C-alpha cells in the first residue's frame, strides 16, 4: 500500500516536472525542473529495487550532466524572443501533428489488443540483497564485451570533446611550472661588490 502511494506521488511529480521542463519560460527553471524529474525517476527506480542504478542516476545525471547543462544555459545568453519567433508560424503544423499522434495513440490503445501479456510485479528481494553486487557480477562476466566497448566510447568522447572545444590561443600566458621549479640561483642572481657611495 505504502509503496503504491509513494509510486503515485513520485510518478505524478515526475510528470509535473517533465511538463514544466517544456513549458516554463526561463531556461534555468526548465533545467532545474529536469533535475527534479531525474530525482523522481530515481525514486521510481528505487521502488523497482534498482538501488545502484537509482543512485547512479542521481550521481551522473544530476551531479554531472545537469551541471554541464546549467553551465551552458547560464553562460550563453539565450535570447528568448528570437526563439519564440517561429512559434506562431509553426503552430498549425505542430497542432495538426499533435492531433494526428493523439488520435493514432488513442486508436492503438482502445483497440483492445494493446496488452503486455500479463501483470508484472517488481521482484521482492531479501534485506541483504545487494543490487550493486549482482550488477557487478553480471557486468564483469556476461557483459564484458559491451563493457569494454563502453570504455572505447568514453575514450572517443574525450577525443571528440577536446578536438571540438579546445582552441590554441596564442595570446595567453601560462606559467611554466617546470621552468619555475628549475630556476637556479646562479642564472638569476649576481652578487656585485659595490663601494659605498659617498656624497
Amino acid at each position: 500500500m505504502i509503496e503504491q502511494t509513494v509510486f503515485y506521488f513520485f510518478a505524478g511529480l515526475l510528470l509535473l516536472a517533465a511538463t514544466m521542463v517544456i513549458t516554463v519560460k526561463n531556461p534555468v527553471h526548465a533545467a532545474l525542473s529536469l533535475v527534479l524529474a531525474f530525482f523522481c525517476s530515481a525514486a521510481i527506480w528505487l521502488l523497482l529495487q534498482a538501488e545502484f542504478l537509482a543512485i547512479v542516476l542521481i550521481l551522473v545525471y544530476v551531479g554531472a550532466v545537469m551541471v554541464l547543462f546549467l553551465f551552458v544555459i547560464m553562460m550563453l545568453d539565450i535570447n528568448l524572443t528570437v526563439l519564440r519567433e517561429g512559434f506562431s508560424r509553426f503552430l498549425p503544423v505542430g497542432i495538426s501533428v499533435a492531433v494526428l499522434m493523439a488520435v493514432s495513440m488513442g486508436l492503438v490503445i482502445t483497440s483492445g489488443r494493446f496488452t503486455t501479456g500479463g501483470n508484472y510485479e517488481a521482484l521482492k528481494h531479501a534485506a541483504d540483497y545487494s543490487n550493486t553486487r549482482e550488477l557487478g557480477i553480471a557486468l564483469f562476466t556476461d557483459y564484458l564485451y559491451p563493457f569494454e566497448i563502453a570504455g572505447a566510447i568514453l575514450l572517443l568522447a574525450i577525443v571528440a570533446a577536446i578536438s571540438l572545444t579546445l582552441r590554441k590561443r596564442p595570446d595567453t600566458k601560462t606559467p611554466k611550472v617546470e621552468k619555475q621549479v628549475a630556476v637556479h640561483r646562479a642564472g638569476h642572481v649576481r652578487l656585485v661588490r659595490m663601494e659605498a657611495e659617498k656624497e
Partner: protein
Amino acid sequence: MLEHYIPILIFIVIGLGLGCVLFLLGYVLGPNRPDSEKNSPYECGFEAFEDARMKFDVRYYLIAILFIIFDLEIAFFFPWAVVIREIGMTGFWAMMIFLGVLTIGFVYEWRKGALEWE
C-alpha cells in the same frame, strides 16, 4: 531493502525543510526596508555596468565534459570494487583494460593541453 530508504526520504525532506524554516524565520523576524541603492548588485560602489550574465570561456565547458566522463568511469568502478573478490582474474583484467583505455584518454588530454589553465 526499501524500508531502509524511508528514513532517507524523510531526512531529505527535513533537510530541505530546515532551509525553508530558517528562511521564513529570517523573513518574518527580520526588517524589510528596501531601497534602490541597497538592492542594487554590489560592484565596488559603482553603478552596475551591464548584465552580469556573460558569455564565458569554453574551458569551463571542457572541464564539465571531462568531469562527466570521469564520473561515469567512477560509476563503472563501484560495482567492480564490490565484486572484485568474486569475479576472478578475468574481471580484474577487464577493468584494467578499461582503465588503460581511459588512461590513454587522460594522456591525450594532458598532452593536448586540455588541463592547462591559463
